[in-house]
């Protein structure tokens, strides 16, 4: 087993390699991949943002929410209404949607303060079920378009960005959507990371691990829970805005606006690794890839795929995803990121830097059990 000290030259080299690989991929995708693939990655980014927002509430705070599709919908509808009905430039909707979602998120969190576990899940479930019904309500149809929803809410002309230059047509739109989603993703990641690494973030983890102990230690449960729910809702609404601006259409039956959306966000977060910053990223990419790859399986497939799934009258995508999820959960209960960490820990250990003048600093010897990758 290889041991590397935190903040050592080797550690920095490893980090640089990691950053380099990610930077290469981020630049390679929009410049070298087919337009449809770029679009798929953009779609994955949207789902990752939604799953990251859910991760704050569920993964780090332990508050079960099945209502995030409503916040996604708030973002999507806010963008569509402002762009289509009020002629706003789509870019400005990124500022308004999170504010609305934050307020709604905080309001929903208030009654949820006295309950937890499955009861909290049920309250948020009601929110997820209510949202599509609410936007379909006849008396709100003047605003939301009712059951028909809103269409043609997208960039008529793409803005000209300094490095990207003038983008046109399908290829240009795909590249623009990619970078737009990437920027929002980075911002979302940094916000989540900032929160998790902060005092506020530690109070979230304390609430998750032992609410009573957290309260005893001085964590204000009410403020913390309401705030994290509001922040999470605001971040999730950004995913909704991106989704609407990509297709230009938002309807009450859009997959991510309904309860199914909440389930997809949950799925991504859990498969990737709940309570880890990278979990939703890994989960989102895997989900979109798997969903796209398996959708074509069926009667027309050849080779091994045809042998395995030729019996199906239709694409067995849903079945494969479901079975895959069960297998992943049994093989990697802490998600794929947890699995990767465990596997890497068998060959490589990053020894944490001793703190201050602790006796641990003298010899820099830290027990393996405290080590982290």
């Amino acid at each position, binding site marked *: 087993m290889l041991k590397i000290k935190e903040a050592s030259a080797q550690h920095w080299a490893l980090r640089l390699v990691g950053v380099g690989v990610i930077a290469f991929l981020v630049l390679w995708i929009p410049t070298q991949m087919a*337009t*449809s693939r770029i679009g798929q990655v953009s779609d994955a980014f949207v789902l990752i943002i939604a799953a990251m927002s859910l991760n704050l509430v569920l993964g780090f705070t332990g508050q079960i929410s099945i209502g995030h599709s409503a916040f996604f919908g708030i973002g999507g509808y806010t963008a569509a209404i402002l762009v289509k009905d009020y002629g706003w430039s789509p870019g400005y909707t990124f500022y308004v949607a999170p504010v609305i979602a934050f307020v709604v998120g905080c309001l929903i969190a208030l009654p949820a303060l006295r309950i937890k576990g499955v009861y909290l899940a049920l309250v948020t479930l009601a929110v997820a079920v209510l949202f599509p019904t609410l936007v379909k309500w006849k008396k709100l149809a003047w605003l939301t378009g009712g059951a028909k929803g809103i269409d043609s809410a997208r960039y008529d002309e793409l803005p000209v960005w300094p490095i990207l230059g003038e983008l046109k*047509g399908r290829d240009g739109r795909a590249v623009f959507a990619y970078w737009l989603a990437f920027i929002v993703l980075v911002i979302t990641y940094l916000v989540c990371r900032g929160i998790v690494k902060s005092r506020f973030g530690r109070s979230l983890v304390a609430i998750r691990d032992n609410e009573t102990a957290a309260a005893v230690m001085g964590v204000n449960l009410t403020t913390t829970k309401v705030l994290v729910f509001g922040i999470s809702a605001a971040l999730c609404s950004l995913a909704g805005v991106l989704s609407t601006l990509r297709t230009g259409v938002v309807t009450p039956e859009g*997959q991510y606006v309904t309860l199914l959306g909440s389930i997809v966000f949950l799925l991504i977060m859990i498969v990737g690794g709940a309570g880890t910053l990278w979990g939703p990223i890994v989960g989102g990419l895997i989900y979109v890839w798997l969903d796209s790859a398996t959708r074509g399986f069926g009667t027309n497939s050849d080779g091994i795929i045809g042998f395995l799934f030729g019996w199906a009258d239709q694409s067995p995508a849903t079945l494969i995803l479901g079975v895959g999820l069960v297998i992943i959960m049994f093989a990697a209960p802490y998600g794929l990121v947890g699995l990767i960490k465990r596997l890497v820990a068998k060959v490589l250990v990053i020894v944490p830097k001793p703190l201050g003048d602790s006796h641990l600093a003298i010899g820099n010897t830290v027990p393996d059990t405290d080590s982290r990758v």
Partner: protein
Amino acid sequence: MKRKTYRAIALAVVGSLAIAACGGDDGESSSDTSSEATNAPGDTSAPDDTDAADGEAWAVNTDDCVDPAAANAPIEGTIKIGSAMPLSGGVAAAAFAPVKGGFEAYVKYANEKKLLGDITIEVAIEDDQYNKDLTPAAVDKLLDAGTHVFSGIIGTPNNLAVRDLLNEECYPQLLALTGSIGWGDAENYPWTTGVLIPYDVEVKAYATAIQRDFPEGVDVGVFVVNSEFGQEYLTTIESIAADYGLNIVDEQTIEATDSAPPTAQVNSIAAKQPPVILAVPLGAGCATFLAEVANAKAANPGWEPRVYITATCASSLILGLAGDAANGLYTSNNLVDVLDPEIAALPAVAEYLAFMEGQGLTDIITTGGAGWHTAEMTVAILVKALESGELTRASIMNAARSFEAVGMLTRPGVTMKMSGLSDQYIAQSLQIVQYDATTKLFTDIGDLITDYES
């Protein structure tokens, strides 16, 4: 503990996915129907000379295309038709998979018959799970694969999700398999057309039939699915009710994702005892609605309402699920009922049946008809474009908007046609029919309705 919690959540998620896969709504594609029109009765007039010339004179403007040269580039060797349909997920098995089978079967038929001469037709149909969020990705993939023309994309939101893109890029988005009236907007979306009878025309046809039977006016109960699909019907019903003497005494809805029988809704209508029910359920919901109406009739002796139900329910598959509860209902279509022995003996229909049987597709001869018909009209448009001199994306669109054809499965007297800006819906004639659950056949009621043809 944490590990167990995540496992429990994972299992719950899988369960939810399974429920989502089993339930869900069915889109607007009819298996046995199609058509067009927006003119109110009385407004319809035969095309005058200007209209007739309009179709020939109309030409799509390619100047604003992202790549005008590509829109006018000749297509040689192989023409690729693409589509996006729900092939998996909640709605696929019952309603839409057969559409794909029928579509692909006709393309094979056309290639065998060499309808496009030396040009081979290829078709690629992507699965969008009836989820408009997945349609752009499906269309993107098809465009990357060199698709020239799109046809038969199912679902209004799904078509809307790619309409701006395809019009900006100047790719024909032909024969959208939905009846939204939005497909008749050639000025803003010249590259998009529909294939089903617009929902407002269908409603007006029912209203006319009801008015004929109840000239003094009549109470009507309305039942619609609470989706974009049902909303379009409801809007028309409410807007024309007074003109046709329809007094709406009750309006009930059901969510598209609700698979429970609409017991409370039907009981609410039954309490008002209207002599007529106008119903717009969806997919498997058609059968549960009809079963509930049968139950309500049994519980209310003497109440025998006439049920007019959307043509999207009028497939043998769906009505077969309803059994005797479907007996006597009224609906409409503009394609033939291939199960009728007399119809099956017609040469074109016999050829269709023989070809489908040869392909091992006997099980979808009724439900695959919409796919066959859509593909047939698509190829007919391509043939016309080829005859115009050169097969290009622009010439295909011009041919589509100056088009007239009779399909192998269209009813006698029905002509599929479009003409520039004056006639933007390909199908506007329809026949009111009544279903007999014993024979499982439809009987024509009155004459073919052609009043709505532009």
